[in-house]
């Protein structure tokens, strides 16, 4: 694995190279690309051309008729997606998107400007599908498809986190994430993909979740957190699994089950549901909220997503609540009902505690836990002690997908402000719809990609640093499991004194539960403000 340069060793150079972009080639430098997909994972998912290969090899072992495959694949996508057709034709290269991408900001590589990322595909489209491109070639911005182009696609379509920030600024709404999605769809036809996406997707397909946690282990892990909660406040929670007839099925990304600090968020969910007496169940089969299929191709996304409705139907629940996750919510909001619905076996979500009917989810029948909690707080159904978060000075990272695929901004802030006394937003150019990506989304959260992750995460980290310096912020909250996994190393790298939390961890800290013993620590075992001495005695 590549050694990651220190922050002060990184060079930022925004001068475009001398050579024109059609004449430059990516350099497969360690830390800037992800390991290729393994054959066994491609086989599980039924993806084409499973094989062992390496981007460093001259020969990528593409199928012999690979050009034809791309041509047919592109034609197919053009016929299936108006987005692609329109986006291929109407970019005016105004450059409004160019400096909006965190990977461009972090790398200075002009091909990380969304507009050029798009041109990588557009140039081939022009050659094969437009008259001007066929006749005029380069003059019309067209170029011949060859293996170098495929390698370039691989490099740059896996240096885009599909965050959609660029699409907010484009005067025509050209969404480079959509172009990347199509690019990856085409690359997958050739078996060109990365294992950090394929591995989790294959795991999810067979075991129900990205981490490959088997059913008994899933139950064990959650029960471990039950004990942790008991240690904090003496309350014994009894979650159920695969239980038929529950009112609600709860699905969250498996990352929350597996690693800190997501696990504390999971404890928050458990405590909340217990306290309000929600009749809900976990599922070991649909034990993944996230969907790395989104980062593979549309078919794989659909395959993995199908489990949510299938399990809800099998268990006979009334509706589904989804946990804090970013791309999971992109899929639920924009794809699920279309792909695997209609979910007419479910009912329109209605909070059993407040009676609120969630009309905004009346077709998908799946609501976001933060909506659910915001409604509980608004109706005064939770007893909260925000002073238990007084040792934290909190800011909030709008995760890309809930931000730009939903518009989920005020709900999380409402919850945070009700459970914390110290909250500061980052500057307006870096939050809400203009939020910067963590730099590791869309399946790029792997260690061998660390340099690019740190570079791509710079704009986010820099904004955190701003509120850290100005307001002493020491906690970065978010509603995304990938964020919870990748922001801690990002903070260590750029803003070392800031930690990362999910919103429901803050809820878990603040919620006053019936019959609980006095808390001296937060869910992480850190002493509460004013309790520093007591927790010492406990130890």
């Amino acid at each position, binding site marked *: 694995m590549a050694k990651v340069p220190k922050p002060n060793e990184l060079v*930022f150079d925004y001068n*475009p190279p001398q050579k024109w*972009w059609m004449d430059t080639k990516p350099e497969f430098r360690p830390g800037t690309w992800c390991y290729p997909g393994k054959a066994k994972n491609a086989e599980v998912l039924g993806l084409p051309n499973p094989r062992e290969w390496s981007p460093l090899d001259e020969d990528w072992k593409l199928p012999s008729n690979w050009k034809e495959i791309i041509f047919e694949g592109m034609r197919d996508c053009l*016929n*299936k*997606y*108006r*987005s*692609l057709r329109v986006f291929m*034709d*109407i970019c*005016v*290269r*105004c*450059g*409004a998107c*160019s400096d909006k991408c965190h990977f461009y*900001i972090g790398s200075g590589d002009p091909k990380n*400007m969304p507009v050029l990322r798009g*041109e990588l595909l557009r140039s081939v489209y022009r050659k094969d599908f437009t008259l001007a491109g066929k006749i005029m070639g380069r*003059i*019309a*911005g067209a170029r011949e498809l060859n293996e170098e182009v495929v390698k370039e696609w691989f490099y740059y379509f896996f240096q885009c986190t599909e965050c959609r920030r660029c699409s*907010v*600024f484009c*005067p*025509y*709404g050209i*969404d480079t994430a*959509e172009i990347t999605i199509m690019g990856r769809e085409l690359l997958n036809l050739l078996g060109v993909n990365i294992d950090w996406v394929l591995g989790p997707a294959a795991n999810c397909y*067979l*075991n129900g979740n990205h981490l490959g946690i088997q059913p*008994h282990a899933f139950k*064990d892990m959650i029960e471990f957190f039950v004990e942790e909660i008991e240690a904090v406040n003496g309350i014994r929670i009894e979650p159920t699994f*695969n239980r*038929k007839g529950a009112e609600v099925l709860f699905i969250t990304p498996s990352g929350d089950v597996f690693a800190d600090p997501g696990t504390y968020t999971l404890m928050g969910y458990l405590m909340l549901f217990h306290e309000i007496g929600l009749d809900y169940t976990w599922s070991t*089969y649909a034990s993944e909220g996230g969907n790395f299929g989104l980062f593979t191709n549309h078919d794989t996304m*659909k395959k993995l997503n*199908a*489990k949510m409705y299938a399990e809800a139907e099998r268990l006979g629940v009334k509706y589904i609540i989804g946990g804090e996750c970013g791309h999971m919510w992109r899929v639920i909001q*924009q794809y699920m009902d*279309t*792909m695997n619905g209609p979910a007419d076996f479910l009912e329109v979500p209605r909070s059993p505690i407040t009676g609120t009917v969630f*009309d*905004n*989810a*009346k*077709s*998908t029948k*799946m609501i976001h836990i933060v909506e659910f909690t915001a*409604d509980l707080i*608004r109706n005064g159904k939770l007893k909260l002690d925000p002073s238990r978060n007084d040792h934290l000075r909190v800011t909030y990272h709008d995760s890309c997908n809930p931000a*730009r695929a939903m*518009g*989920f*901004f*005020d709900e999380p802030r*409402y919850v945070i402000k009700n459970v914390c006394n110290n909250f500061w937003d980052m500057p307006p150019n*870096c939050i809400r719809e203009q939020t910067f990506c963590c730099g590791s989304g869309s399946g790029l959260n792997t260690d061998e990609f660390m340099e690019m992750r740190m570079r791509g995460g710079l704009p986010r980290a*820099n904004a955190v640093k701003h509120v850290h310096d100005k307001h002493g912020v020491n906690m970065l909250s978010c509603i995304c499991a990938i964020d919870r996994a990748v922001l801690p190393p990002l903070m260590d790298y750029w803003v070392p004194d800031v930690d990362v939390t999910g919103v429901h961890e803050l809820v878990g800290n603040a919620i006053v539960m019936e019959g609980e013993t006095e808390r001296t620590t937060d869910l992480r075992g850190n002493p509460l403000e004013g309790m520093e001495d007591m927790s010492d005695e406990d130890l």
Partner: protein
Amino acid sequence: MGIKFSLLSVIALMAAVFVGVKVAGLHYFFGVVVPYAALATFLVGFIYRVLLWARSPVPFNITTTSGQQQSLPWVKQNKLDNPSTTAGTIGRMALEVLFFRSLFRNTKYEYHEGPKLRYQWEKWLWIFGLLFHYSFLVIFLRHLRFFAEPVPGFVHSLEGLDGMLQVGLPGLYITNLIFIAAVTFLFLRRVVVPQVRYISLPSDYFPLFLLFFLGVTGIIMRYFSKVDVVKVKELALGIVTFNPVVPSGIGVLFYMHFFLLCVLLAYFPFSKLMHLGGVFLSPTRNMPNDPRMRRHVNPWNYPVKVHTYEEYEDDFREKMIEAGLPVEKESK
């Protein structure tokens, strides 16, 4: 890339007219044949391209949400940047098309040592973009006086407004100045900003030169060489009434101006200028953000192979039973 090529192409086009009209006397060709051919290319090409776009379905609702969603009743929705109704979506599109809403968000990124990143005010592209399009529109509408008899009232009002300054004779139109200034700005921006220059193609410079010379020839005709407007109108009316006539005594400058317009028309459907039509069909902007409320239907939604619960239970039954997890069947 391609500045010289684009500039030379446009100059070559004008030279061709000069030779064609002055030397070869092809008045009819440039005054009648080319305009009809260009108009036909424009209409057929434009419609063809829009139909091509429209023929591909929109399988998913992939709205880009640029504001607070419709959510709980007490959460204030941003109804224009994140509409959930048809009316809101029309409003959003109107803002995009009439005021370039998204471009208005533009900022400029700056790197400072530290590193410290800054996002600066940058509305120049928005300002000059708007100035360019609106002056183009006004000029276009003003030209209707050549193509309609009697001249519609609004054209007169427009001329009055546009000539407000009352400078010179014939009166100076503000939009002419703005148009040339804006095109110049768009060109300079492309050349001066290294990143924009790097992404630019010949097809980005070509329309700018085309428009620049279109404007310049027009201005020269109006203020300096004083073309015979009555004869031009005769020609223009002839074309729109399908009764083409080529009055003699119209200067070659007019033919150049007219030819550049024809090139613009014919070039339009094959170029990025189609953003005019495309922006209306852009799926991230023209749909309400309502896919959780109303199911969006994908016409080609086909089944895929899934790993069913039954298969899953078969894989893990023993372990599930041992862990006390409920199962559908006690054994295979």
